[in-house]
């Protein structure tokens, strides 16, 4: 039984490590900031879960479970916020390559708003 649980913990740890590898490969291979964001922030949601599961399997006490759950919950709450802030700032400061986008529906909205503002400014200066 112990050997089986050890094996399970080992597999979970390897899975988590594989997710770190995925993040590293993505960082190297993906072409621009936003696509690298995907690789840098996302695989760790699953990666950390696998590591925490491995800890739970290895410790085998109920006392440790709430801390592990809390750990994952806080990651779930915080990771998207930081990813959103960096992604948003990256988009606004034009740190993305338009040629890599097959469509950009936010750009259309921004363009529309900018045109409207320009027209209003024109009207104001004519009056």
């Amino acid at each position, binding site marked *: 039984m112990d050997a089986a649980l050890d094996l399970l913990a080992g597999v979970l740890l390897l899975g988590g490590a594989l997710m770190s590898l995925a993040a590293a*490969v993505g960082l190297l291979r993906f072409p621009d900031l936003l696509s690298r964001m995907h690789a840098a922030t996302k695989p760790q949601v699953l990666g950390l879960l696998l590591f925490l599961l491995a800890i739970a399997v290895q410790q085998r006490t109920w006392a440790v479970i709430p801390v592990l759950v809390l750990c994952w919950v806080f990651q779930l709450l915080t990771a998207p916020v930081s990813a959103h802030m960096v*992604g948003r700032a990256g988009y606004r400061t034009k740190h993305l390559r338009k040629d890599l986008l097959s*469509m950009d529906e936010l*750009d259309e909205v921004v363009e529309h708003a900018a045109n409207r503002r320009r027209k209003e400014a024109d009207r104001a200066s004519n009056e």
Partner: protein
Amino acid sequence: MMTRQRIPLLVELPLLVWLVLVWGALWQDFSPGNLLFGALIAFAVANLLYLPPVELGGRFNLLYAVGFAGRFLYQLVLASVQVFWLALTRGPHLKNAVVAVRLRSPSDLLVTATGHALSLIPGSLVVEVDRSTSTLYLHCLNVVTSEDAENVRRNVRRTEEWLIRAMGSREDLARLGMPAPHHLDGRGHQ
């Protein structure tokens, strides 16, 4: 002095319970004495460090919440593997897109929860939110054709639907039956 509305204890209760659970988990001690002390601290923290209350939908369906969690985990694993595969095979020749998705619910909590769940799953990232029209702008990996974009929209709507069924208000539930708003008519609303 900051003016504040009094929050009834009942509205504040979910927050207090959550804080007490966090306290117990951090000390790894769920004995009554520790929880009572935690409750005192939670009450003090919630009242001294005041934040606007989160407006809950007023209902909670455990069955749909469990279903949502299962779907989330499944998508998490699938998408993690997919992004890994994309990094290995496609790498620098990736085509992405920024897709606008209009959500049905005007509730801040549901828009946030939907955006959060989507951001956690590899392959989609919320770059901008239009709160007035509940529109999410998502940066998605490997979206080439308009059909791919339509798939993204369908998936986002389904995520929202699960969340609404789990914890949305009755008005949100009623909205589910109506036809979906067009994805870009947010432009007419300035």
